[in-house]
């Protein structure tokens, strides 16, 4: 066990865990942030996607000891002071989910895209989500939701 200072969704958090503990496990079990999901534990499916220093990152094998004080943002931290993030509104509007297990990771990955490319074409969105697996076939709704959010963000 060792103590780690983390910055998660803008707040300082301290945890005492084994240094090899994956970030995902700490987020879910120690910090009560359960939006990021355990899908494969192999960095293959994207269900555990969070933002680390603004970039989309897989958290299921990332040891907590390697996170440092880099800002970690989870789906719970996506909403802004004024309310839901445009992506969250768009996913509700488009009903962009079936079982929804993959959706938190996809939302975060899409947020990373829109942060550096506010006007992505369809191919750019698909490329960004290429490693995010969805088994229900909700892809068309998800693509539509990301496009809708991008339009809204551009005003």
């Amino acid at each position, binding site marked *: 066990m060792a103590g780690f200072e983390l910055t998660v969704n803008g707040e300082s958090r301290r945890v005492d865990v084994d240094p090899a503990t994956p970030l995902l496990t700490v987020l879910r079990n120690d910090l009560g942030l*359960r939006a990021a999901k355990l899908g494969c534990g192999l960095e293959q499916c994207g269900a555990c996607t969070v933002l680390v220093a603004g970039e989309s990152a897989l958290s299921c094998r990332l040891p907590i000891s390697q996170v440092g004080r880099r800002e970690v943002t989870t789906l719970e931290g996506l909403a802004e002071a004024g309310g839901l993030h445009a992506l*969250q509104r768009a996913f509700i509007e488009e009903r962009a989910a*079936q*079982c929804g297990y993959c959706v938190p990771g996809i939302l975060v990955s899409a947020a990373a895209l829109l942060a550096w490319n506010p006007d992505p074409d369809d191919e750019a969105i698909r490329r960004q989500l290429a490693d995010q697996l969805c088994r229900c*076939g909700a892809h068309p709704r998800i693509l539509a939701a990301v496009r809708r959010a991008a339009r809204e963000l551009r005003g």
Partner: protein
Amino acid sequence: MTSRTLRANPKLDLWVRFETKGRVTVFTGKAELGQGLTTAIAMIAAEELDVALERVDVRTADTADGPNEWITAGSGSMEQSATALRQAAAEARRRLLELASRKLGVPIPDLEVADGTVRGGEAALTYWQLMEGRRFEGDVGERAEPKAAEQHRVVGRPAPRREMEELVTTGGRFVHDLERPGMVHGRIVRPPTYDAELQGVDDAGVREMSGVLEVVRDGRFLGVVALREEQAVAAGEALRAAARWTTRPLPCGEDDLVERLTANPRQSLPVIDGAARETDAPPLLPADPATTTLSARYFRPYHMHASIGPSAALAEQSGDTITVWCHSQGVALLKPSLAQVLDVEPDTIRVVHVPGAGCYGHNGADDAALDAVLLARAVPGRPVLLQWSRQDEHTWEPYGSAMLVDLRASLDAEGTIVDWSHDVYSDTHSGRPMPMGETSGLLAAWHRDPPMSRHPRRPSTGFHSGIHRNADPLYTFRRRRIVKHLVDDLPLRVSSQRGLGAFANVFAIESFMDELARAAGADPVEFRLRHLRDDRARDVIEAAVAKAGSTPDGAGRGLGFARYENCKAWAAVVADVAVGDDGVIRLLRFSIAADAGEVIDPDGLVNQLEGGALQSASWALKEQVRFDRNGIQSRDWESYPILTFPEIPEVGTVLLDRPGAPFLGAGEATQGPTPAAIANAVFAACGARLRHIPFTPERVRASRPA
């Protein structure tokens, strides 16, 4: 006539309650699997009761409360549960109006209801004032008349999906996300292959590991319980390394599967009018030489359900009672099945459905429930959250059965099909746990000491059940011969996967219809319509073709059509594809049309139809469980790839709404038509006739005319 659902669950109180002021609680015995069940159920309740949608709380499958609806499968939720709930809600409203009429002294026809408030003249009473916290007594019965379609204001119109806001803000609430005071974590260690024998395990080191509370060994069932999740993972890995096994080879590898399907011992039954008969199967007689006769063989491999989330369950033993929260499709069947394995009274067990990741049939959900219970019994009083590893999921779930379909048909001089023969070879499609004799359908029950044996395999004879689901086409032929073959001694564990036999049967039939149309020199659409006497079928095909419009430049177009189980939703899929020189199939566009009777939640229905088509496309283009005699080689997403975002086509869907008509199950309706639509489109694009799933680039290149 009262439905089977209402006969089994006649009490009104099982369906509708007004317990909390301003809220209506409605119950369903079905589970929310991501199909949008709770949204549709809430819409029906809001409609019949005249309350705002936001006031309706939906409670789903729980063996401790609400109706027992056995299982959430076979596209039955709308036909069974929603139909029953509509009647129950109508009865609740009827009684509330009767009560209001007496209290207000106003005749029923002069009462008006708006959002749960009943008005008569100047006075008004709310449903909650009328009920005064009481619950309904007596049965739903048949006295109430649900609203006529033209009175509907809620159903059939777009509505928000229930769980969406929670999902996009906090990630929803899945089994994996549950938390209870004192909760600890479990992992299991499966044998390296199905029949491996445990020679020994030195678990002393594992027991010493940080956080480990218990190492469970019962026969060849192995598991660990630890305080923290990462400790359970580490202990599980250490236990795996400490276990010594003797493995036995599988009876065959994937290369021998086609041969095994036709050469192994089997039970063969004729299928007549959609049902199998316990008589001798008719032989295949020589074709009439005056006809043009075609034969073709189609194949699907084993497919995984491949849920994105691993199977999981939370179990807690408290005194003599056990509670399990899990994502089983059939909590009412799982409860007695667990009791049978544990040798306890069924009523000491409560099973509550909590959503998991989408399952698409019988995956590891039920097995995980037993695993969790076995671990929880080792640490009484402590809730155990058990999650499978990705490898557990990929290598131990019961797969969709591999199938082989041999078709033969004869055309007369006018190009009409006069003779049709269908032989379908497959393992069973029903491996679900049932409380049945001394056998079990639960994985750990086979691994414990003493082991229980598996459920016996018997050819199902029901209407469009199992192997012969949709083997009997909707088309009109002069003669037809349909035979199902339940094949023994096949290598992999199997059970129900979305669509069951319909996936391969419809793939074969609809591909063959395309081949026959071309042999007859006919347009494939016109050829199908010519052999259909069913107007709603024709409407659906024509609607899909109209939706598709003109074929994109350089693309091939194909159609697939079926009415699911010949009695549920009609669905047609038009696929437009492009095929590269390298043999890669690019899906450009799917145009779907469906008739599912009266539409309640159009958005949810479209989601199911489109999702089914895309999942089916993934099975058809990319998926097969890889295995050799040493065991299953598809252990993760790299060795079992599925369709990804860059490969997704444009999808458009048109619904043929039939207000006032019965609801028809649609959740599996596009599963069969889709692979045929793709195969037919590939043929149109490049002349390659694909009869063997998956449609890999190598197969496309090998099938393409030189």
